[in-house]
């Protein structure tokens, strides 16, 4: 028997939750307990969400010495203290809360997406990535060997593989050149350490693997298995040895920051030194996920429902940022992306304002809008978090918690905006997570203020259209068209144009066009 602290897994449900199924009692529980009793007390098959929670708690409690609980959930009022001259709030959450540094990488593992660890040297970024590799069942040695270390001399061949020298000489065509592919391409968890030290050309090769899941050398293609990616960087602004190409940064789904070590946990660190313990070598086998289990997790996560009200609030939030009235002459082109593509200097756009309340308009806080990829990622991670918490549907709080990590470098702040000039928002200039969460809260407040939860005429028209056009008469179609036109007139009467209104008007235009086409079809019958 080993007295291994690291081999212990929480036997109690790590997130007690209302039992969705009738209770079943296992009489074998009688022999489960603190003493190892061999096969007599083998653990029962666990649900995958519970297994992932156990993996989370094993890492938080055993592998990581000083976790920070920055993903806060509350069940009832939380204790809140205002601390220091800046009166920053310290919250003691009243429900199970989580450490983003562990939780987001685990959700990345479960959904096979891409996570970037940022933070200063020696804060556990690489160690955490290795833990994720071990979680996939690969031996520690293999995980470490397969890890790619970015360096300024890294070539495409270093990254992907070399053509076999004999083939280079003897081949009569490119098809005959075989490639010795690097072993890491086969890994289910891929780790690229210090990716911002990779030369730009090699980054482009990496982009193909990350984005399209295949590698190409001399016309030969290697299809990679589905995998989770972990990258590390000392500087999340891409200020490593080489500038990180934007497309590569855009492929990263979440960014988590390795927070500082709390010296109050020095005793644990000392014990680890004295015991010569490396947590990644001691991960219990019960926590390892097979490929099939990861597939199953992905399916279960996709099945998590997103209630309409949660979706609407996300729609409302996302609507705030793309509009840039001075950028386009045609309605559809009044976007920040139009200005970006044209290379219009940002300060010119900011100067050409239309009299909106730049403090109230959330769109003024950012220099860009959200892409489809961003929204997809946001929904996937919100579903994954809901599933991890044992829920069947996404709660607004799930969305609120994952949002800053997904949009960390996707939504770029305009630090010259009036919002950032306010003394109480000074911290938002450097704290991207806090700013994004505040941004989402402000959008939610506005959504509530506008009463859209109760009265959403555009949503009602969209729902009516979604119900289908089968059997809708010409008379009814005309009535609906008139209704849309009236609503457009009402929405635009004497009002400033804000992001959400802009998207509502575009939606109404879409509905109007669909009904117009349907009307034309009806007449042709």
């Amino acid at each position, binding site marked *: *028997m080993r007295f291994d602290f690291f081999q212990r897994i929480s036997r109690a449900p790590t997130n*007690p939750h209302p039992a969705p199924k*009738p209770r079943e009692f296992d*009489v074998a529980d*009688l022999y489960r307990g*603190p*003493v190892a*009793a061999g096969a007599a007390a083998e653990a029962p098959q666990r649900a995958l969400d519970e297994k992932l929670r156990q993996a989370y708690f094993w890492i938080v409690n055993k592998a990581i010495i000083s976790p920070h609980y920055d993903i806060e959930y509350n069940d009832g009022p939380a204790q809140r203290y205002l601390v220091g001259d800046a009166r920053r709030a310290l919250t003691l959450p009243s429900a199970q809360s989580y450490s983003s540094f562990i939780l987001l990488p685990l959700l990345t593992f479960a959904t096979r997406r891409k996570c970037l660890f940022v933070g200063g040297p020696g804060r556990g970024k690489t160690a955490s990535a290795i833990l994720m590799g071990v979680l996939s069942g690969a031996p520690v040695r293999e995980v470490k060997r397969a890890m790619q270390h970015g360096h300024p001399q890294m070539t495409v061949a270093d990254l992907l593989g070399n053509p076999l020298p004999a083939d280079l000489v003897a081949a009569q065509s490119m098809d005959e050149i075989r490639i010795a592919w690097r072993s890491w391409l086969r890994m289910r968890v891929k780790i690229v350490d210090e990716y911002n030290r990779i030369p730009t050309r090699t980054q482009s090769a990496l982009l193909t693997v990350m984005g399209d899941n295949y590698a190409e050398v001399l016309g030969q293609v290697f299809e990679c298995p589905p995998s989770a990616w972990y990258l590390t960087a000392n500087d999340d602004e891409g200020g490593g040895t080489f500038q990180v190409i934007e497309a590569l940064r855009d492929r990263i789904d979440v960014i988590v920051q390795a927070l500082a070590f709390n010296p109050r946990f020095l005793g644990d660190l000392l014990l680890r030194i004295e015991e010569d313990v490396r947590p990644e070598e001691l991960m219990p086998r019960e926590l390892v996920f097979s490929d099939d289990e990861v597939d199953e997790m992905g399916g279960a996560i996709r099945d998590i429902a997103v209630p309409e009200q949660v979706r609407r609030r996300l729609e409302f939030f996302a609507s705030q940022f793309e509009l840039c009235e001075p950028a386009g002459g045609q309605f559809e082109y009044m976007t920040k992306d139009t200005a970006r593509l044209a290379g219009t200097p940002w300060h010119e756009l900011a100067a050409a304002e239309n009299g909106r309340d730049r403090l109230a308009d959330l769109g003024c806080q950012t220099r860009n809008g959200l892409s489809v990829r961003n929204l997809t990622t946001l929904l996937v991670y919100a579903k994954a978090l809901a599933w991890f918490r044992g829920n069947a549907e996404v709660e607004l709080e799930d969305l609120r918690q994952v949002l800053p990590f997904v949009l960390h470098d996707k939504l770029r702040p305009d630090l010259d905006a009036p919002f950032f000039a306010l003394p109480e928002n000074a911290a938002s200039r450097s704290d991207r997570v806090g700013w994004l969460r505040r941004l989402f809260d402000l959008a939610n407040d506005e959504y509530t203020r506008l009463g859209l939860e109760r009265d959403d005429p555009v949503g009602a028209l969209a729902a009516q259209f979604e119900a289908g056009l089968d059997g809708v008469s010409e008379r009814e179609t005309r009535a609906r068209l008139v209704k849309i036109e009236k609503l457009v007139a009402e929405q635009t009467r004497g009002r400033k144009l804000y992001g959400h209104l802009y998207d509502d008007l575009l939606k109404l235009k879409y509905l109007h066009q669909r009904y117009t086409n349907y009307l034309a079809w009806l007449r042709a019958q």
Partner: protein
Amino acid sequence: MTPSPTICPAFAGALAARRAEFNRRTHEARRRHQQAFDEAALTAFLRTEVDGVVRAVAAVAQERVQEVVSAAYDIALELCGQGLAGGVGAGPAAFLGQVWRKLAPALAHVVAPLPEQVLGMLSNAALHLAALDGVRCSQWLDEMTALAPRIQTPAELRSLGQLLAWRAGAAHFRSGALAAASGLPAQLALAAFPESHASDWDALHARLLADPWHRPGQAGGREIGAFSGFGGVFAAPPQVRANDAGFVVASGERHFLLLADAYGAMLLAATREEFEAAGQARAELPVETRGGQLFFGRQALATDLPAAGLQVCATATTLAVSSPYSHAIRLLPREAAHG
């Protein structure tokens, strides 16, 4: 029990033979568990509980002593590291000590071949049962000890332990224990129910499966729960609803799952959602007063509770009677023909 001043020669010999190894393990456990590790408790546990087991094993299988000492020593270190050994009074640690002193030596012939597994099972079972409110631990220990000579294998030990745990009041184990019991030798299974005087295990097994209130020689019905101010679990008179598993109970801000049969009643933690999901329609059925006596359908309710506010909640086999004037719940077998 006072630790014996000396340990038996077999134990002393086994410790001496691998002294450096045992010292290394102790050192490792001390560092691992740090402040939680109680060396005095370890010494007492080795001198009393482990020594008793080693003496018994030495009497039946001298050649297995070294292995038994090694396994028992590791378990002792683990238990001491977690503060689970050396308890007195009525807590789990105290019951663990009783199991090691009384039951484990009686099972020496089963311990000897597989000491780690059997001693581990017994330790976990002791801690598990002692942590369950409503289980009669001393009954389980007495019945296990009485039948110990008839147990031949760890598998029999496992099944019998589960069966007797149910008999001792772990009502939630009923179906699992009866399933496990079907794998026991018939004579051993029958011996677990001496009050039945049955000779046909299959018939008795079928009867036990069919009727949770079947218990030869004892009238059905029991009472569970009391005011938390007097050491009970209910802060307020409980409300009871039936669900598929049994009953769900709400009292104050807490919720419980209530399972009951002829051998015991068990209150387990439940959630508000489970209570709310339990069928409201099945929760309250009419109770009538006829001739000064309370009736549920045609079944007379032998209760001293006032009729006002009385609630009877029924599953297919059990009636739960609760009242706003009482913190206790009366559980009665439901008369199938009349209910």
